């Protein structure tokens, strides 16, 4: 098929080299304790690696835009799934010590049957 983009071998090899370098980088930065920044940094590096794979190995950069649109929509729903779940679970506070009696004795909610 003549219309297909053929990614040059040189490009593929360069992308691979960058991916291995980023793997070494994420392993190194994980050894340094920078507190709350460790997770965002690790995710940023992983995200960059994933983007390189998607754009060059999966050739989405050169592909029909409709494939990129579908992919982006899929990622959007993953983000919705993750953030909206965390809106609930991350802000519940400590419910570990709330026993059955404490809930039943609470005035208002749960009493109006």
């Amino acid at each position, binding site marked *: 098929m003549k219309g297909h983009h053929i990614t040059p071998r040189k490009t593929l090899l360069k992308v691979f080299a960058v991916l291995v370098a980023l793997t070494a980088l994420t392993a190194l930065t994980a050894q340094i304790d920078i507190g709350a920044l460790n997770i965002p940094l690790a995710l940023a590096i*992983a995200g960059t690696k994933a983007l390189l794979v998607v754009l060059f190995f999966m050739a989405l950069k050169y592909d029909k835009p409709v494939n990129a649109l579908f992919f982006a929509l899929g990622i959007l729903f993953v983000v919705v799934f993750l953030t909206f779940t965390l809106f609930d679970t991350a802000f519940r506070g400590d419910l570990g010590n709330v026993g059955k009696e404490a809930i039943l004795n609470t005035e208002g909610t749960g009493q109006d049957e």
Partner: protein
Amino acid sequence: MANTGTAEHTAQERSMAHLKHYFVSSDQQFDAAKLGMWLFLITEILLFSGMFVAYAVYRVWYPEVFAIASTELNPWLGGLNTVVLLASSLTVALAIHAAQTDKRRALVINLFITVLLAGVFMVVKYFEYTHKFHLGIFPGGNFAYAEMNQPIVPIFFSIYYVMTGIHGVHVLVGMGVLSWLGVRAIRGDFHSGYYTPVELSGLYWHLVDIIWIFLFPLLYLI
């Protein structure tokens, strides 16, 4: 391939053999198949996202437990497997390049190197799993590792086993598909006019690689 008149004629006939009657052209058939593959990949991403969300929920609740439990994972083995999978992604991309440029020999070689690298990944995974079983680190209620008796630690390992396990199943499926493609490539099924199965399986394989790109730092490097 020899460029004599008859050879070219048969090559042309063979190059159209894959075209289904309900498609206008090879290109249309290829684009339809590829869009279908991307849709399938989205369902795969959503399958794994359920596990990533479970991971995020528990990590936000118990960050210190994740930090303790993850020390039991060997980052060198995880890193080795990362590089192995990245290399296998490269060889799949090179295989597609070979198919696009009618290099049958390079296509076959790259496909089988990919299968080999996937095999290396699974062997490393096997040693990691058996080492943990030896220590008594089993998923869920069977957890019996006395040195980590903190609560919630078994949940970390349950998440670890489910995520890496389902990822490993994907690697095994990929090995089967890529081996089958290798046999078909030897048979001469693929050429620059038709390599859709190689392209689609390549997309699948890269996705399996991407999942691992996230699993490695999230599980091994806390």
